[in-house]
């Protein structure tokens, strides 16, 4: 990339030509939230009033806070003759109760050491990994000319390959691991476990600790078991996410006395990677739907999965020329490559009808035309279900499409910045300049998630006047989500000159992206708050 490419980006806020009717609203929003522009991203998407509080955890953070903090304290208390390895083993043995370690140590140190599998009398720290020649390992029965072996102060020796395999199997229990010899109770220090893995898995004989202690394999395994066994902790359900959350307090959430009208008691929490989920059903944030509606809906979708298979077959062609359409990103504004017909992927209607006016494709219109009258009632019921189901799944798959596009954009921006940093020439972009991207990504995917669940919500809702308010809130959110999604998709499809072009387009659209993200969060909140109030006041009811 040449230097001349990036001089004026900060000043050029020429946007794409998008039809937009939000400008007025932006100003309104800004006056409302002038206190903090990122307000909406730091809060969960939940009704304004919620009694749920929680802690976000990652395993390394948890190990540091819950396990190693006690280790540090114990080190300070200087128990005579104990090495650091010993202290960690004693704490692990006593399930991280430092008081118990101290009490038992002063009570009967010999007994405590024996129970925890430490040598009596205590030994100085020693290297237990050795390179040796002409060794017959009695576990694998191999005869080695030269091999690394592991032995504790008991002198029971086995080859490092056997130890690696053995520890690998034992790790899942999260408990202390002992010498292989059956009648030997000596415990393998935590640090040795990582050393053995590093040597065997990286095939090197140089011992170097590559992991910090809060990523130690045994401590990680132990923390996992701890989280699994506690009902106040739950793993984030997002795919590939390693975060977990501790519920500190929530409204009493008892199935039997569950107030079906109050969605503010739903314990929506967030993980360390900003995924929101329901602590009660361990499912993604499903607001505005109550948990019981979610359960009903998921069961219905499973039961009816075969009936609705035809949907896929019916949504893959242009409604004008019938040539097949491939959908790549998340945006639902489709343009047929062949006939240039612009249509909505969701309802297959003309896109121009969606743009400025009412986003009609949300509403299930019970069209009582002559043809419809002829249809049986059950057909209508199925059609109603399919209407909502289709929109529910389309937002789900659009979310995947969005994420694909956004990941690409984010990667390009980050790579670009890195390359600029290495380059000594003047940089016109700083990290803070693209901080809005992750925020926008979050806003878009959270917005889609809420949107998705509004269709489940609407399916179970009884007809009422307030339904219209809900639907118009849904429309507002829908439009903003699609507009932001479209900006991102256009950035990747219209940039012809590679990465520098993408970065240029991102910066050109920065204001628009930030404004749309904020609008999404605001509209999402309006929708959920509205649902909360109307349900609570009994103005909207579910058809259970």
């Amino acid at each position, binding site marked *: 990339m040449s230097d001349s490419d990036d001089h004026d980006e900060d000043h050029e806020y020429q946007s794409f030509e998008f039809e937009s009717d939000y400008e007025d609203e932006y100003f309104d929003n800004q006056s409302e939230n002038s206190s903090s522009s990122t307000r909406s991203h730091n809060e969960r998407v939940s009704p304004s009033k919620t009694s749920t509080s929680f802690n976000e955890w990652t395993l390394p953070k948890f190990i540091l806070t819950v396990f190693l903090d006690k280790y540090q304290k114990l080190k300070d208390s200087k128990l005579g003759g104990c090495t650091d390895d010993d202290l960690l083993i004693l704490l692990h043995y006593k399930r991280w109760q430092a008081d118990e370690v101290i009490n038992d140590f002063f009570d009967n140190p010999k007994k405590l050491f024996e129970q925890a599998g430490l040598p009596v009398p205590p030994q100085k720290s020693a290297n237990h990994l050795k390179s040796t020649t002409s060794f017959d390992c009695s576990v694998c*029965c191999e005869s080695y000319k030269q091999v690394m072996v592991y032995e504790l102060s008991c002198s029971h020796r086995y080859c490092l390959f056997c130890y690696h*395999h053995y520890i690998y199997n034992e790790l899942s229990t999260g408990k202390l691991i002992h010498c292989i*010899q059956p009648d030997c109770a000596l415990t393998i220090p935590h640090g040795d476990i990582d050393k053995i893995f590093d040597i065997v898995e990286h095939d090197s004989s140089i011992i170097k600790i590559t992991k910090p202690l809060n990523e130690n394999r045994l401590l990680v395994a132990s923390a996992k078991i701890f989280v699994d066994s506690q009902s106040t902790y739950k793993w984030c359900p997002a795919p590939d996410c390693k975060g977990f959350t501790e519920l500190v307090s929530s409204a009493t959430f008892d199935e039997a006395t569950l107030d079906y009208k109050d969605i503010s008691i739903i314990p929506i929490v967030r993980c360390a990677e900003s995924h929101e989920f329901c602590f009660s059903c361990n499912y993604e944030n499903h607001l505005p739907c109550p948990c019981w509606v979610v359960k009903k809906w998921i069961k219905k979708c499973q039961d009816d999965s075969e009936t609705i298979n035809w949907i896929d077959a019916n949504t893959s062609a242009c409604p004008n020329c019938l040539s097949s359409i491939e959908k790549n990103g998340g945006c639902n504004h489709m343009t047929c490559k062949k006939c240039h017909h612009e249509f909505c992927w969701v309802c297959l209607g003309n896109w121009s009808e969606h743009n400025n006016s009412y986003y009609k494709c949300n509403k299930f219109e019970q069209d009582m035309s002559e043809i419809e009258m002829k249809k049986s009632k059950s057909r209508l019921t199925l059609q109603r279900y399919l209407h909502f189901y289709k929109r529910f799944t389309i937002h789900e798959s659009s979310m995947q499409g969005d994420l694909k596009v956004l990941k690409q954009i984010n990667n390009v921006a980050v790579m670009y910045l890195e390359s600029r940093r290495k380059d000594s020439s003047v940089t016109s972009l700083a990290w803070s300049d693209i901080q809005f991207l992750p925020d926008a990504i979050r806003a878009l995917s959270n917005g889609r998630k809420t949107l998705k669940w509004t269709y489940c919500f609407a399916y179970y809702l009884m007809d009422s006047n307030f339904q219209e308010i809900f639907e118009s809130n849904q429309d507002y959110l829908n439009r903003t989500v699609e507009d932001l999604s479209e900006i991102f998709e256009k950035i990747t499809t219209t940039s012809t000159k590679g990465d520098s072009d993408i970065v240029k387009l991102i910066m050109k659209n920065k204001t628009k992206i930030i404004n749309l993200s904020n609008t999404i969060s605001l509209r999402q909140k309006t929708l959920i708050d509205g649902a909360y109030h109307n349900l609570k006041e009994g103005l909207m009811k579910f058809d259970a």
Partner: protein
Amino acid sequence: MAALPKRIIKETERLVSDPVPGITATPLEENLRYFEVTIDGPSSSPYAGGVFQLELYLPDDYPMCAPKVRFLTKIYHPNIDKLGRICLDVLKDNWSPALQIRTILLSIQALLGAPNPDDPLANDVAEDWKKDEKKAIEVAKEWTVRFAKAKLEE
């Protein structure tokens, strides 16, 4: 099937060349990880005179995990259930890769000599055992005659 690990070959060789008294273990020709096993009842136990058939299988992860062993002959014992499954610590939590087929079979033979109704697998048998040990031992003897000797006399 993957090549047999050296460990299994060595153990099999030794079982043949240096057999344990009162125990036989023969691998199947078509599956060298599957052994047909017999254990003689210990002389001072209600199982004396009986020859018990078992099956032993070495899982893929052997010796990192324990062999799978099961009685095929019906036996009245508080730590062995109707399906022949054995409640023995070294077959579960206390397994160590340094243990061997022969040590496991010796442990099983020892279990026949010293039933432990306080750590039962077959609950009803353990109950009978604790309620009336004398009677339970009689039943165990009876079963030994009926199921573990019949084969010999055939």
